[in-house]
């Protein structure tokens, strides 16, 4: 209707030189949480705009492309505080945006998805790595751009096995998500031929992460915690809660490398990634945001780029058309990882290589050579089609 009106006005204004048609507007909402999780290392403390900064860059990139296709991308950001109604916020965003990029905890993500189910708004999960969101709790209107815990754990396990570090000492935090990560790591060990020779829980007894004399205590505590362990090659830590893992490197009783939540870490992106043209996006990101690009930034960038990619391929701004393209066989997106990324059609999870980083350098990229798959080697990472519990409806 609006389009007709614009055309009519155009006709009336014939005397003036012909102008380009009004651009097609494509709304992208961003639904995140207020505040950031405290990290053990001050260097790794996330910025306030962690994630959304990636979307901003992608919207800029999409608009550069959109210039040539008469498409314009707009971004609307909402941050939820503790206790705020996620369904309400998501519905309000969906009034103006066909796509919502979400960085939410798993339950909040499901609430948002269910609230939007009937209106056909698509959620792109950029933050939650929980496998259950792609398995028993999968939703037909949620695309998962963030990798899963099992993808991260498999990526690490493939490298450790390739390195012949097959005997693992697994240290697990006492919070739920630490235990979930440990589950993924145990599963990965079984899949790829590693063995957990000993497992220990590191209890979170509370207390501040930053103190003025913390180091003295940690230096005594960590060697004691890691002594009298059967012969092992590598200590694998599951500490998503950021309680202890970063204290382990160089402090273990036996001189052993650390991996998992500290030391060699599996991640979707790192500021040190410079292969496959990545320097270009690292530079663009730095120029726009005056800081380096994190994994969450990249996941959010990729989500917004997927929307842009679908819009340019279909030459449309209709969310239904774009979603159909994203789910279809012709969709792929380039994201500076040396290969095209595609969606697993059984649960709408984005296939992607996983980087293994040490905080300064990219040590390796999984899948590792020799881990074969009949469809895509990227499907050696995470839960594969025959094992899936997801039934998209």
């Amino acid at each position, binding site marked *: 209707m609006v389009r007709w009106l614009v055309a009519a006005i155009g006709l009336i204004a014939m005397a003036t030189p012909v102008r380009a048609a009004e651009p097609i507007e494509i709304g992208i909402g961003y639904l995140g949480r207020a505040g950031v999780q405290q990290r053990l290392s001050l260097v790794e403390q996330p910025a306030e705009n962690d994630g959304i900064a990636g979307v901003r860059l992608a919207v800029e990139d999409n608009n550069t492309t959109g210039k040539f296709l008469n498409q314009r991308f707009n971004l609307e950001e909402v941050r939820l505080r503790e206790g705020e109604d996620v369904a309400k916020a998501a519905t309000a965003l969906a009034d103006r945006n066909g796509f919502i990029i979400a960085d939410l905890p798993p339950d909040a993500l499901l609430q948002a998805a269910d609230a939007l189910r009937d209106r056909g708004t698509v959620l792109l999960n950029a933050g939650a790595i929980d496998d259950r969101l792609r398995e028993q709790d999968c939703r037909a209107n949620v695309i998962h751009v963030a990798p899963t815990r099992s993808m991260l754990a498999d990526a690490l396990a493939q490298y450790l096995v390739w390195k012949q570090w097959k005997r693992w000492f697994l240290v697990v935090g006492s919070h739920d998500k630490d235990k979930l990560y440990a589950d993924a790591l145990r599963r990965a060990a079984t899949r790829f031929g590693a063995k957990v020779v000993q497992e220990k829980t590191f209890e979170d007894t509370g207390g501040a992460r930053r103190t003025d004399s913390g180091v003295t205590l940690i230096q005594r505590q960590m060697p004691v915690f890691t002594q009298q362990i059967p012969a092992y090659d590598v200590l694998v830590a599951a500490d998503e809660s950021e309680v202890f893992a970063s204290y382990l490197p160089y402090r273990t009783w036996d001189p052993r490398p650390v991996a998992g939540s500290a030391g060699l870490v599996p991640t979707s992106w790192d500021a040190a990634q410079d292969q496959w043209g990545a320097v270009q996006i690292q530079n663009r990101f730095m120029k726009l945001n005056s800081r380096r690009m994190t994994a969450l930034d990249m996941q959010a960038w990729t989500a917004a780029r997927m929307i842009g990619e679908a819009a340019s391929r279909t030459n449309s701004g209709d969310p239904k058309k774009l979603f159909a393209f994203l789910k279809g066989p012709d969709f792929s*997106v380039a994201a500076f990882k040396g290969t095209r990324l595609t969606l697993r059609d059984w649960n709408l999870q984005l296939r992607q290589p996983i980087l293994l980083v040490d905080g300064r350098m990219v040590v390796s990229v999984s899948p590792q050579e020799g881990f074969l798959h009949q469809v895509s080697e990227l499907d050696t990472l995470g839960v594969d089609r025959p094992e899936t519990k997801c039934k998209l409806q």
Partner: protein
Amino acid sequence: MWRRCLLSGTVLWLAAAAPASAFMAYVSNEKGNTVSVIDTDSWTVTKTIKVGQRPRGIEFSRDGKFVMVAVGDDDTIQVIDAKKQEVVDTLPSGPDPELFTQDAAGKIMYVANENDNTVTVIDLEKRARIGDVQVGVEPEGMTISPDGKILINTSETTNMAHFIDTSTRQIVANVLVDARPRFAEFKHDGSELWVSSEIGGTVSIVDPVKHVVTGKVTFSIPGLRSEAIQPVGIGMTKDDKTAFVALGPANRIAVVDAVSHKVTKYLLVGQRVWHMAFTPDEKYLLVTNGVSNDVSVIDVAAQKVIKTIQVGELPWGVTIAPQ
């Protein structure tokens, strides 16, 4: 020493007697920060020239006197004197230059600047920057139509071939191609534009008049997953009948029937094959193998790899002196 004198004497004599056979190929080594000079008679590296940081795009000037090499991390293009075989000058290219092309007269150069979404126009005689064209995200591939009227630039994240009128420096058309377009090449008769898409895994055939994709070259190699097939450099024979396409980490050159757009053969070369250049007599095609640090020589008529030459670290681009 005697040997060296004798040898170079012989080469000189040969060059004078039979100018058609000996050519000089210049190879940019992305990691080595050097350019290797290959003699196509002896198939040996005769000199290694130190250049700036991260040399990639490399091309002879039209008169054959200079070799220009884009040194991206130094934000400039260096000029190598082909006689002295050393860097003698630099050009104001704009930030992070990667690939470039020249007009037929060799007076104007167009450079893709990856970092700021522009194509920079340089007057080669004045060595001055005379204009910019705003293009898509991460401009990369550059070529010019045989009639000199249209400049093509491909942008890697926008996934387009931009058609730029060389007289007005305005974009006249944008053609969407598959993901991460890296290289563009016209047929010599101007009837088709070929654009390789590294991540998409295809080469798009574009009608340069109608500005539409009319066909695609697709690749399939038994035993190799499709993601590993990443087309980059393209070489077209002068009769427009045969094209060679470098397939990156697939470690192969595809030989393509340029009329039917079907692959007729895959030639195994070194690891991560990037770009290529024909000798002016079109007897040989030299291709750079980025990971195995060598250059493969292909006998064009026989469609066979006949030689491998070790060069510097991570060879990327190659150019051969015109006759």
